Structures are given as C-alpha cells and as structure tokens.
C-alpha cells in the first residue's frame, strides 16, 4: 500500500527510538572549541536567526516562531542539569512539531488561565558561538539567554543557555532541527512555567 508522506503537524511518526538515539548523541560533546566556525557569514546568519526568534517570542508571534523550525523538529528543555535521556526521564518539556503547535493552539484558545493575561517577555541573547558538525550543512549554535518575564505584577528572570541544531537551506537561512533549552534552575520547583522559552 502506498501512503502519503506523514504530515508531522498531524502525526508523530518521526519520533522513533532511532530519532531519540541520534538526538541524544548529537547533543553530547558538540561544543569542542576546535569545531568553532570562523565563517563570518555563518556567524551572522546564526545571530540573525537567534535575534529573530527572540523577537518573535517577545512579540507573541508564535506562528512565525514555529516557521523557524524544520517540519520534523524537536524542542527539548531537560529537567535535570545532566540533561539525561528523554526516553527514560521526565523532561521540563519535550515537544515534537505537533506538540509545539499544540502549545501555540492552547495559548490562542483564550482559556489558558496561566497565560491570561499573557506574560510580557524581554529576551537578551548573547555569547553566540557556532560549532561545525560532521555534516557540512548542519551547525550547533550555543547562546546564553536572559529573559525577564512580567507576570502578575512582578518581574522574574529565566536564565540559561540554548543550543540550536540548525540546517542551512537553499535560501541561505537556517531551519531549526532541534532546540535544547538549558535552564540553570531546571531541576527546581518553578512557579507558573507556562511561558515559551
């Protein structure tokens, strides 16, 4: 039987054991200084993408934000500082394409009380470093973030580093294959963790 290719917005065929295995592998030992890219075009492209992503999230433009991701993608916030294997432990968040869209859908229902009114956020992104991988079109981008959230009359910080695994497209931009967000307090009890990182 010939079937149409699965649409990752509707089904989750691509998150398999092999996918997890590869994900855990490519997010280990990628930050070897010898692999730093000194290509200024690549560096500028990485910076532009991160700034754009931060802006979309701060502006609540979630659909535009989702478009920065490849159709088959992963969004991973480990719940332990050692990161662990998401197949064997609970994460702070682990989304595939469909669940990223679920997240945005829920926020837009008007009934997500934890984001009603929606948090205002302001993100600073810095210390951007681009690492080459064993695939010439794929890079790992490490960046520090410091986001301030205004929620319920108070300001509070969300701090850590992000790792974006990106693939270069024909149009000279990057698509996010996987984003890992490492909160420095990922293993602590956090009030209302409903904001998007």
């Amino acid at each position, binding site marked *: 039987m010939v079937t149409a290719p699965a649409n990752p917005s509707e089904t989750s065929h691509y998150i398999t054991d092999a996918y997890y295995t590869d994900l855990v592998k490519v997010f280990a030992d990628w930050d070897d200084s010898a692999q730093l890219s000194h290509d200024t075009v690549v560096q500028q492209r990485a910076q532009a993408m991160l700034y754009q992503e931060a802006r979309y999230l701060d502006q609540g433009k979630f659909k535009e934000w989702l478009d920065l991701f490849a159709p088959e993608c992963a969004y991973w916030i480990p719940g332990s500082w050692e990161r662990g294997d998401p197949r064997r432990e*609970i994460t702070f968040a682990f989304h595939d394409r469909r669940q990223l869209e679920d997240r945005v859908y829920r926020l837009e229902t008007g009934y997500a009380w934890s984001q009603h009114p929606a948090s205002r956020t302001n993100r600073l992104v810095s210390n951007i470093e681009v690492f080459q991988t064993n695939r010439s079109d794929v890079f790992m981008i490490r960046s520090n973030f410091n986001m301030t959230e205004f929620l319920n009359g108070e300001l509070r910080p969300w701090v850590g580093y992000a790792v974006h695994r990106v693939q270069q497209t024909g149009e000279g931009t990057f698509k996010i294959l996987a984003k890992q967000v490492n909160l420095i307090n990922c293993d602590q009890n956090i009030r209302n963790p409903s904001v998007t990182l």
Partner: protein
Amino acid sequence: MSDGNLAPGRDGRRFDFEALIHEEKVHRSLYTDPDIFALELTRVFGATWVYLAHESQIPKPFDFFQTKLGLRPIIVTRDGKNEIHALYNRCTHRGATVCRQAKGSTRSFRCPYHGWTYSISGELAGVPWREGYARDHKEEGQFNLAQVPRVESYRGFIFGTLNLEAAPLIEHLAGVRKPIDDWLDRHPGGKVAVCEANRMKFKGNWKLAYDNSADGYHVIFSHRSLLMMENRFSPDDEKGMSFYKQHPDDGPIRVHYYGNGHHFKDKRPTLANHPGAMWQIEGKHPGMEGYEAELREKYGDDADFYLDLAAGIPMNINVFPNLLILGNHIQVLEPLSYTETATTWYGTAVVDEENELNGAVDAINALRMRTQEQFPLFGEVDDLTNFEEIQVGLGAEEDPWVYMDRGLGLPDRFTEKDGVITGPATDEVFMREYMKHYKKLMMANPTLSISRGGSD
C-alpha cells in the same frame, strides 16, 4: 466549648476549629493565617503519617534522598542492612545541614562546618579534636542525628510520623490501599520507579491543592484550553478528560472517601472494556504513531496491553496530606509557607526485571515519559493559577467563607458501605470529609518525639 478545646497560636491566640470548619463551608483563615500554618506543621505534618519518598529513589544500600517533613529538612537513607531511616538534616553540634546534595550515595555525612561525621543511619561517627571536650559525645546517644521515630513503607511509598501513638501505617491507609494496589498491580512486578519530575510551585496554601485533588467540578472550566487542545484533531471529543463534558454526575465516575483524609476518584468505569482502551483516549504525544506502529508490528495483539502501560490510568488517589497519585504520576505537595506550596509531579517508569514485557519496556517508557509531561505543562499550570487567584480572593476579610457544599443535602446522592462514602464525579463530599479529619487533627495535641537511632 471549653478553652481546653482551643488550639494555641502566637501571643496567646486560640483557634476554635469548630467555628472555623463547618460541614458546608470553611473559614478563609485556614488558608491565610500564618499561626494556623504553624500549628499544621506539628498537628498535621508531624502528628500524622506524611509521605516522604519512594523506595526507588534510594534503590541501593547507602543511597540517600533529601525531602521535608513539613519544614523539617529530612534525609531519607537506606543503610547497609537495607533499613530505611528518615534523618533530620541538622548537625547535632550547631545545627548546620550535614547533607547538601539532593540525592546520592554515601557511607557517611560530614558536616561542612566543623567536621562532625555521621553514619548513613545517623550515628555520630566522629568529632574532630575530641580531646578538647570534657565528654565523649559518641558515648551519648543524644548526639546522633535526630530521626523520625516511625518510618514505614507501603509497597514502595515511604511515610514517617513523629507521633508514637499513631496507628500502624497499614491501618492508617485503610481502604485507600485497594486503589493503590490496583494502581501498582497493572505493572510488571507490581512496582514502578520514579524518574525525575515536573516541578512547580504556587503562591497559595497547600490545602488549595488538596481541595482540588479529587475535584471533578473544575475540570471542564479550569482545563478548558487543554480539553480544546487535546481534541483539536478529534471532532468526537473523546480524548483526555472529555468525559467530564456531558453531565458527569450521571456517568459512571465515582469519588470514594476512606477516612483519615484519604480519597479516590475512580474514572476507570469510563473506559471501554478491552485492552488498548486507555491508549485510545490518550491525547496526542510525541512519538505516539511511530512507536505504536513498531509495537504493533512486533507484538501483534499484545501491543494493546503494552500501549496501555504507556497511557495514564484514569485514577486519582489522594493520601492525606501530601501524596497525590494520578495518572502515572506521584505528585507530592510540600508546604513552604502559609501562602506558598511546592508541587512536584514525579514521573514513574515501568520496571521489567523478569522481562514479562518481552523487551517492550524501553518503548513503553519512551512513550510514557511523554504522556506524563502533558498534563503538568498544559493543565496543572492553569490550576495553579486558579489556586493563586483563590489566595488573592481570600484577602477579602469581610467575606470569609469558602464553600464545599456541592451535593450536600441532596437525597440518594451518596452510599456508605463498610465506612467508605461514595458520591458522583463532581461532588465535594471528599472535601467535607477530609476537612472533618483535618479538624480532628488540629484539635488534638499528641506528643511528638524524635529518635536518636540505635537502641532508642
């Protein structure tokens, strides 16, 4: 009432819990008064059995795990003889904590301040430069770490109390053991292992979470966004908690109250009666289709049984005051102050030591991690916001009552059999009953004690 029935607060304050807790309503001060919270730290979190940890968090001899009994810092340890202790994390010398790691394995705890050293079971093992003391502290049991004098487990769940007069744990749990047994027995070996957690807290009193724990009334309102999200691909609305949408009190869901504050909301009767029925009502989670296809190809009809192990079982089992087992989670409430509470949603994994699952356990757990993450992320956050907003609302002193009278006074609404009260899905009977138990605890004044281990 005689003054002897009034519970003490600071500056000579006395609390009349008969006046604060009525059958249909309770007074705001239960949630807003720091003196009542201070009293709870002994009369509830001390005088009755309190959940401390799960045995899978200290699987091997010399493992330890940090927790709290109320606000008391506790290290739950497993000694070399496999005995479990709940040690006070407080150096007997000057009071510093002796353990500063959340969990791990060690032969001894050495206080970082002056180097006093204790064994994994709490005995004082060494005092630096002891010739500077006129006494030998090691000869005197009183310098061992304090420990919770009664620590008992029920099928992996470790509880402790400071009340030597408390009934044995197994009697205290009474009827709630049955749903706990059912919850465990669907797994190979009748057990699970804790595997990290979704960790949250909220600015509100801990009882707001316990009030909510078997509340079937809030579901379609508080979780409206989650229900819409879960059903965005299914026009028939059959996913997740959608069985609450149509007159849930006429349906088969029941809430059971067992005494001692424990209750259980049983949503299993909503399930179709065939393997795979739990999996069928799961929302959409990462990896579902890929893993399901692989399991079906490899295991044929057995796959339905395996997929059900990856799905959350529709049970809410609430063990007063701080253990809430729901779906596959072990949720633990930790009071931080009268107006702040931590809620940790420990995930559980399937353990298959005898390979009863024919090698499917890793796939089951890969799915099960994702099915467990959805509710904390997209459901609990909305409840916690509502709890916080209750705490705000209760700032209104002149409007002091919180009502829990849903179902009260209606004929033929409840049954009572063998001491178990049963009511329909959205009833507040479990709140009324647990508040009666709470009132009894708050008006009693048992002696609390610690042990120093060894022959104590």
